């Protein structure tokens, strides 16, 4: 019997009217054309085209490719005829015009491909076109020779510039002086395309807050911002966001973890073949480490903390020559910092760009501790790679130097002031994150032409001019009118052809943004983190705040205090507003009880282990903290009290204070001290407390513990974990948080059905919603309208419309049940409006 039946079976995507016949890069297919074709192969280009329209990409290109372009494309122009693009085709050749539009009979092209004269027929060799192919060409001519805009058979001569370039800014509209706007307004003007409309304050607020710190603006922030009449409020808000080091770091950690394939758990860790750079990275983000230094510390790590990136993943057992740690090094450095994909060239000379096998191996050899033999497609070539890097025009690596020196040299070349590829690559990534699409796109194909070279070059030079300050670049972008414009409503067909800037594009929230947002609105979410870092205080100062308390007693020399003595200490102060968080760490030699505004809030017996006490019960106005301390023993012995307080207000300002000179003491009699639930009725008199002189007997043991307690207490009470700091779970994976075995530079932009199932019935999200609903139910809302407004202000940064309110308050204005609140929350967070940054 015969072989398998291999009748062509159309793929399901074809059945659905999608494209099916795509091309792959090969030696026969010049790379630039490949890229051009890849663009036009986007499915939208043929979606919905009437059936009798000829499909250029899938019906004509294969014919031309098979029969014509060998002699009539690129530098090959047999008979003076080239069909690189539509224009050269129409120009014709030595025999005159090749095509008369819509006139098949008059078209030389048609005559040639159908000619029976062997000296005349095209192609001159082989079987020529089939009858079906001829029919297609006829239809193509009849329909006016439709061609995909921007597509060319010619190999691209485009090679991106390496060195920085300082473009001249067009004069532009004096009302829009921002450099980015001058560049983009000019581009739009050239095309006579309207400027995208501006956005409202609330749209701006939500977009920029999610983009820069990954969080929703709170209803309070929303209200304040909306009512602020000042003209510079957007600039000030941007500054405030960028100054929030912790929120910034904990948001951008996601981007960098993806780009540096760093995670808290994952493959390779099990066998010890991989190390984290989390602590280094977190600190670098908090400090806004200049990007050139950042790159140097990753490429030539000064210590183990940042070494995980170049060391890659060392798998147990044998791996292919294209995946050794040395080759991983070359691939990672190339992709992350230069937007160069060396994955092709790690195995053979690349088909899609100019990189060659020996260049990939040379870069790998910079890292290698052993002589590195070149392998092509996993077969040894008997040739040892010479350490070197990709742009020798900027300098080269000394192949005889030791590894540490080679890495230093590479770091130096990478951050060489003339290496514009580094700065272009990173500003392009930031533009992509903030504006929704790269200036060069995809962002890892930096060999492709930018849609606006001046813009890319301007941003790159600006970064270098400003000390490689990445926040500066972000600020530059988000202060532009371009960023503060309406997002482009992208129709399905708009993906075809050349990209034309028409405003920013909406971005889907990352898994981390989504969860952070859900945790914000519901108050749910974990409080512990998996990232091995010393987490800085949310909204706090950039340095960990220190204690500001002293040891006190009733006399400065308290080494000989009376055994069994009981002393009350008090502090009274005014509060203009309530702090978000207030905690105290207290130690007393030998025991104490503590009361706030008459209510007991804690006690302790072991001075060696201070206690963490939450100052629940503070009021606006006058407050009193009262601590009754008791010295133990029967004979004279040392006594002292230490109470360190930390408060954080709603703006995130941290204040440290505690026992010290403002405190008073009074003796407590035996009778007064009985009954610990309420404070003793101290008769007084009250006198100024004394700072004790011998605090050294307790301080070294107690104060570090007190510091740790406050740090922890403050976090436990004030701050939830950010999703970027916890390891990926089922829900996050489902929402597109990648497995970071590979470098990832784009998250999925689309919600899939399986994800929608998880969001509809998954227990994790349902748990958050129920938690949130219970919490909201307990709060004092005036009406269901009141609650709905709050949910909209938080989740969507806007008021509900009258129609929305009507839908959501249909069952009356009483505050809804927990179930109804949970359903309301679900319906809102499932809205595309919630899940996109727009």
């Amino acid at each position, binding site marked *: 019997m015969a072989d398998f039946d291999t009748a062509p079976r159309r793929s399901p995507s074809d059945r659905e009217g999608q494209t099916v016949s795509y091309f792959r890069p090969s030696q026969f297919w010049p790379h630039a054309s490949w890229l051009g074709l890849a663009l036009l192969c986007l499915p939208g280009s043929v979606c919905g085209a009437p059936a009798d329209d000829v499909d250029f990409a899938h019906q004509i290109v294969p014919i031309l490719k098979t029969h014509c372009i060998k002699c009539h494309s690129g530098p090959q122009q047999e008979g003076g005829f080239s069909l690189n693009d539509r224009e050269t085709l129409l120009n014709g050749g030595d025999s005159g015009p090749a095509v008369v539009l819509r006139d098949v009979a008059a078209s030389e092209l048609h005559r040639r491909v159908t000619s029976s004269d062997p000296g005349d027929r095209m192609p001159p060799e082989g079987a020529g076109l089939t009858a079906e192919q001829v029919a297609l060409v006829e239809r193509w001519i009849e329909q006016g020779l439709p061609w995909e805009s921007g597509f060319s058979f010619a190999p691209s001569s485009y090679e991106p510039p390496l060195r920085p370039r300082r473009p001249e800014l067009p004069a532009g509209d004096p009302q829009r002086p921002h450099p980015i706007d001058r560049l983009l307004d000019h581009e739009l003007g050239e095309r006579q395309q309207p400027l995208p409309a501006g956005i409202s304050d609330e749209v701006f607020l939500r977009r920029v807050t999610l983009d820069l710190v990954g969080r929703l603006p709170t209803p309070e922030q929303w209200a304040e911002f909306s009512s602020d009449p000042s003209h510079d409020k957007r600039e000030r808000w941007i500054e405030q966001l960028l100054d929030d080091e912790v929120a910034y770091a904990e948001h951008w950690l996601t981007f960098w973890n993806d780009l540096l394939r760093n995670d808290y758990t994952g493959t390779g860790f099990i066998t010890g073949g991989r190390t984290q750079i989390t602590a280094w990275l977190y600190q670098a983000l908090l400090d806004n480490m200049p990007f050139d230094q950042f790159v140097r510390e990753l490429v030539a790590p000064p210590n183990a903390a940042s070494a995980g990136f170049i060391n890659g993943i060392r*798998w147990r*057992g044998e791996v292919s020559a294209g995946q050794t740690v040395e080759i991983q090094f070359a691939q990672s450095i190339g992709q992350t910092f230069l937007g160069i994909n060396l994955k092709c060239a790690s195995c053979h000379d690349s088909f899609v*760009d100019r990189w060659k096998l020996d260049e990939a191996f040379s870069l790998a050899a910079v890292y290698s501790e052993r002589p590195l033999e070149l392998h092509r497609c996993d077969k040894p070539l008997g040739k040892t790679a010479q350490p070197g890097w990709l742009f020798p025009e900027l300098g080269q690596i000394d192949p005889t130097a030791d590894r540490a020196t080679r890495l230093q040299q590479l770091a130096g070349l990478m951050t060489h002031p003339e290496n514009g590829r580094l700065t272009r690559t990173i500003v392009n990534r930031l533009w992509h994150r903030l504006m929704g699409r790269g200036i060069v796109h995809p962002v890892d194909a930096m060999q492709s032409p930018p849609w606006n070279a001046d813009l890319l070059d301007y941003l790159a030079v600006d970064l270098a001019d400003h000390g490689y300050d990445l926040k500066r670049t972000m600020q530059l972008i988000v202060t532009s009118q371009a960023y503060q414009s309406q997002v482009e409503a992208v129709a399905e067909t708009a993906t075809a052809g050349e990209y034309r800037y028409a405003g920013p594009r909406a971005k889907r929230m990352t898994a981390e943004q989504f969860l952070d947002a859900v945790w914000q609105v519901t108050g749910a979410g974990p409080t512990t983190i998996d990232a091995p870092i010393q987490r800085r205080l949310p909204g706090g100062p950039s340095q960990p705040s220190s204690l500001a308390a002293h040891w006190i007693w009733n006399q400065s020399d308290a080494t000989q205090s009376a055994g069994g003595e009981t002393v009350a200490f008090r502090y009274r102060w005014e509060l203009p507003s309530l702090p978000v968080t207030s905690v105290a760490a207290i130690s007393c030699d030998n025991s104490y009880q503590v009361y706030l505004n008459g209510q007991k809030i804690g006690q302790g017996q072991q001075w060696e282990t201070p206690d963490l006490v939450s100052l629940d019960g503070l009021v606006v106005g006058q407050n009193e903290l009262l601590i009754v301390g008791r010295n133990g023993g029967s004979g004279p012995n040392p006594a002292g009290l230490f109470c360190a307080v930390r408060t954080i207000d709603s703006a995130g300002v941290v204040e440290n204070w505690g026992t010290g000179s403002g405190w008073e003491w009074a003796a407590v009699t035996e009778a007064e001290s009985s009954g610990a639930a309420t404070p003793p009725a101290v008769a007084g008199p009250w006198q100024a407390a004394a700072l004790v002189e011998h605090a050294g007997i307790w301080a070294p043991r107690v104060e570090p513990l007190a510091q740790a307690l406050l740090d922890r207490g403050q976090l436990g009470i004030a701050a939830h974990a950010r999703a970027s700091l916890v390891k990926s779970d089922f829900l996050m994976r489902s929402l597109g948080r990648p497995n970071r075995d590979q470098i990832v530079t784009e998250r999925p932009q689309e919600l899939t059905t399986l994800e929608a199932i998880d969001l509809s019935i998954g227990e994790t999200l349902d748990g958050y919603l129920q938690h949130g609903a219970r919490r909201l139910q307990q709060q004092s809302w005036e009406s269901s309208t009141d609650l709905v407004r709050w949910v909209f202000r938080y989740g969507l940064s806007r008021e509900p419309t009258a129609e929305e309110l009507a839908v959501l308050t249909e069952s009356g204005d009483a505050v809804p049940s927990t179930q109804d609140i949970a359903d309301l929350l679900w319906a809102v967070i499932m809205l595309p409006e919630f899940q996109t940054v727009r």
Partner: protein
Amino acid sequence: MFDPTAPEFEQRRQFLRQLTAASVATLGLGAPRLLSAADGQAIEHPVATADSCILLWMGGGMAAPDTFDPKRYVPFRVGTPVAEIESTFPAIDSVVDNIKLTAGLEHVAQVMDRATLIRSHVLPDLGSILHSRHQYHWHTGYVPPQTVACPHIGAWMAKVLGPLNPVMPAFINIGQRLEGVGEQEELKAFTTAGFFGSEYGPLNLPFPEDAARSVRPPEGMEAGRFANRQKLFRRLVDQSPQREYLSDFQYQSQLRSIENAYRLLSAPERAAFDISLEPAESFAKYDTGRFGRGCLLARRLVENGARFVEVTTEYVPFLHWDTHADGHTTLQRMKQEIDQPIAQLILDLESRGLLNRTLVILASEFSRDMIMEGKPGSNANDQTTEPVEALQTMKHYGQHRHFTGASCVVMWGGGVRGGQLYGASADQRPFVAIDKPLSVTDLHATIFTALGISPQTAFEVEQRPFYATEDGKGQAAREIFVQGKS
């Protein structure tokens, strides 16, 4: 039962068409694109002999000499040199004259006339035997590490073929926990659609008895409330002042996915996930443990139009088939767990008229041997926990080394020739493949071919072609199929 010709099916297909169109369109930037064959022509897919595929995964390394490839049986006796032992189970007859199995597989032996038994599946050593790495290789066709996240073969079927029944997820994975087990990160690395994106990824059902919960409203939410919540959502969408942007495909595709999810969650096919609805008599035949119940679930899902279902005995380091010690005793239990359910699955599929269009595959990441680690000449470290020269206790009796020289794969249905042996391993140790060695690449080509997917199918990812079988080189073993033999 799922009937692809029913009118409502066409409706669903319409619906799916919209969904997929949107998915592909949105993913345009940086998403994998289907490539053609090298000559620029459309890929010619072979004609499918199967519409569905069930992979029965014997995670941990199933010892061929103690299961499907009996060698000389040497019973347990204190003092017997380990090197003299070949099989620890006696051979048994099957319904096919020349196919012998080992004791404990009596039910499976009765359905071997519907199967081709491959005894020459060979695997690489990879320098060191690490189960999850070999499993990655087996499930994706690519040896890790790779520069891109490779799709599982189930994801290839989901991507290229799409769901068979539009409401039924195309890739369903039964029996493997991905949290709280050893090597969980390594398992997650291949239990994924990789660069295809999660639309093509698995619906994970680690506990078959809980599967119904994966397709019903959250605990405590009755059906009425679930439906009302969905209505509320739709009304909000309709009222949204943002609806002017609804031309934005991101927006539309999100709404479609939510609708699609709701459709599954309210579809009658949902009942397929609930194995408690199975008649008691039938349930009992599968009720040997999680794997057995997984087989039942797989059957119910395939009856309702599932495309690819994997059922695993579950890989947990040092458990189940991962016998570093006490192998014989462990395998008695393993066989008890798999024997009857597998046979029942085949018979049930057959009696429902589904076997001829359902390819059922039993496989494992490698085999095992009493004394040899890896294969002859390999440098792999001996990893047995009971290294002895001669038997002292039952703990020493069993196949405790990882063996990659030949392992067994069984294929039933889906156009497979019944009652056939394919390839052979040596009669004398080392038991390497001596006839028709079949690599993972070619085995995958065989599987893909049965499903109507060209082994040369490629998608462009990061501007490079990525093939269904490594470098597009997989060659189907055609004689495994009825139509393939001359």
